[in-house]
């Protein structure tokens, strides 16, 4: 049933819908990418933007990812809200200097006086024989870096609301669009509401085990939950939505409630989502407390001797933490 207040759209349609809504509201938003105005570009997720807003606000660019991210950073520093669309996450590896060393760090390096409200959308070519170089998830490389936000929408509705938040955020936000979420359609409100970052969503209620999932693995986890229900296992499915910020509160409370956890990641296991979820649970659970992570502060390194001193682990502080944690 389609009511006038909603649209039945697939993921690409939802992205276009949210983008148009925000570009209408905020003239500082513009979009660019390689071949962006080709028919069907980016799995149709930029369709009609140039027709509606003109090619000055939706423009084609040469193949130069590092410079293209610099283009976004510089204009963002001038108060604009650029959106760079990259056909594959794999191509962002060419822009790591600008993304990690500049976009993520510039606000900190200016003492948080400047901001870089840049959005980077990057697709994952999941399935259809796209092989090693077109299917990389690679999101955890970005999620490691303070100063970035990493968003992993799981459906059209999620894609629209999370993109809107990205466009309004003052930090550089990387929105990962997994090809696995482009298939189905969903009702999306005619007026999209932003979905806050760092707030996970219950995709399915359950009591025996919690599945934490992101991106296309949310629908996969839902299917697994349905299947194991036949064996009498009641699985709760949590869509974490954003890897940075991560909703640690929900991870802890769900894990405490069900006591059993499975993690559904779109990427490789090493230094990935399951390690992160395990750290959050192991550090916090009053019954466990078997892990203490000793690390520099989760922020970009300040220069001042006074601030730098508080940035790295200090012997006395860590000794105290160990005593408090394990006693």
């Amino acid at each position, binding site marked *: 049933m389609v009511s006038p207040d909603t649209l039945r759209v697939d993921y690409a349609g939802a992205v276009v819908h949210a983008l148009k809504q925000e570009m209408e509201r905020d003239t500082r938003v513009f979009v660019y990418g390689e071949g962006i105005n080709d028919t069907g570009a980016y799995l149709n997720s930029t369709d009609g933007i140039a027709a509606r807003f003109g090619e000055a606000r939706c423009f084609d660019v040469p193949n130069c990812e590092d410079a293209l991210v*610099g*283009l976004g950073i510089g204009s963002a*520093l001038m*108060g604009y809200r650029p959106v760079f669309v990259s056909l594959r996450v794999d191509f962002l590896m060419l822009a790591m*200097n600008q993304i990690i060393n500049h976009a993520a760090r*510039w606000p900190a390096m200016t003492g948080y*006086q*400047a901001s870089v409200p840049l959005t980077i959308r990057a697709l994952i070519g999941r399935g259809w024989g796209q092989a090693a170089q077109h299917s990389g998830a690679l999101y955890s490389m970005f999620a490691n870096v303070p100063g970035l936000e990493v968003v992993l929408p799981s459906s059209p509705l999620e894609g629209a609301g999370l993109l809107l938040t990205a466009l309004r955020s003052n930090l550089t936000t990387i929105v990962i669009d997994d090809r696995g979420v482009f298939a189905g359609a969903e009702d999306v409100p005619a007026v999209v509401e932003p979905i806050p970052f760092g707030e996970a969503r219950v995709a399915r209620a359950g009591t025996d085990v919690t599945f934490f999932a992101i991106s296309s693995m949310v629908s996969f986890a839902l299917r697994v939950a349905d299947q194991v229900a036949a064996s009498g296992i009641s699985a709760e499915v949590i869509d974490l939505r954003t890897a940075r910020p991560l909703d640690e509160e929900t991870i802890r409370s769900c894990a405490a409630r069900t006591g059993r956890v499975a993690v559904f990641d779109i990427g490789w296991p090493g230094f990935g989502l399951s390690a992160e979820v395990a750290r959050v649970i192991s550090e916090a659970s009053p019954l466990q407390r078997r892990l203490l992570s000793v690390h520099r502060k989760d922020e970009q390194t300040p220069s*001042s*001797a006074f601030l730098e001193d508080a940035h790295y682990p200090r012997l006395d502080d860590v000794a105290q933490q160990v005593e408090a944690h394990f006693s």
Partner: protein
Amino acid sequence: MDVTAEVALECLERMVVIRAVEEGICAEYSNRNIRGPVHLSIGQEAMAVGVLNVCRPEDVAVSTHRDHAHYLAKGGSVGAMIDELYGLESGCSRGYGGSMHLFSGEANFMGASAVLPGSTPIAVGLGLGCKLDGRRAVAVGFSGDGASDEGSFFEALNLAAVLKLPVLFVCENNGLSTNTPLAARQAQTDISAKARAFGLVAANADAVDVFAVRRAAAEVLDHVRSTSQPAVLALTADRLCAHVGPVSTIDPIDTGAMLAEAANGATRDPIASCVGAILRDEPQLRGECIEILEGVPTRIAAEFRRANAAFEDRNAVAGLVAPPPPKSHTV
């Protein structure tokens, strides 16, 4: 000289401010209250001053790890920069950036990158911002010749040219990347020729002469501003200091010695060269020159004393122990 007495003295004063701040760093560094790497511009002051003297306040600039001269020539506060070196909250980057990441929103100095060629692609984005603003402002992206070893330096030139953006890329060629000479790094060492191959207008100047830099910059800036097309200004000068660390290879400013050096037509010190040009064409300005050479370092020494005292007060609470001095300033 092809400038008024007022402009000539303005350029001299700005170069002496930059030199005096860096001589202050050299003098104070061994006290270990300035804690962080410093990349000095001694010998290269005329690059920043010549270019930014013909820029407008609304023009925006971005720089590199060697950013002191650019920040000061763009109009950044001297006191706030010195506070930044001491890691104080009153610093221009609130203590977060240090020497390599000076920032002044008021002066439209948008910051500095210490990973080359990072400033160059960002300058392209600043140029896009200027174009979208529609106020005919220009983005100035400073880089060293070392940045032009990197691939994305040329991506940025191409992108600015193809999008027709008002960006002046200033490539400061001191002939060294850390200590590796340009000729050991590039088979074609003519940076302007490469810029022209990418479809950009390019000009050269020897930056021992601040007025020659100013002239060349005015010409390319006019092109950038009137056509909204990027250009490259390739400047050469000698880095009369170490790559990093408080090491100058020339003596601190001394009025008598500077006036003597000003008469040396072959000097590589841009301040001496500037004084020489002024005294040659406008000898009646001798008193004003001496006033600058003596007055500026005195004022700046007072700023260092103030900031050092503030550091000591702050540290009386924090109780940080001075770390051992670096074994080498090369890294």
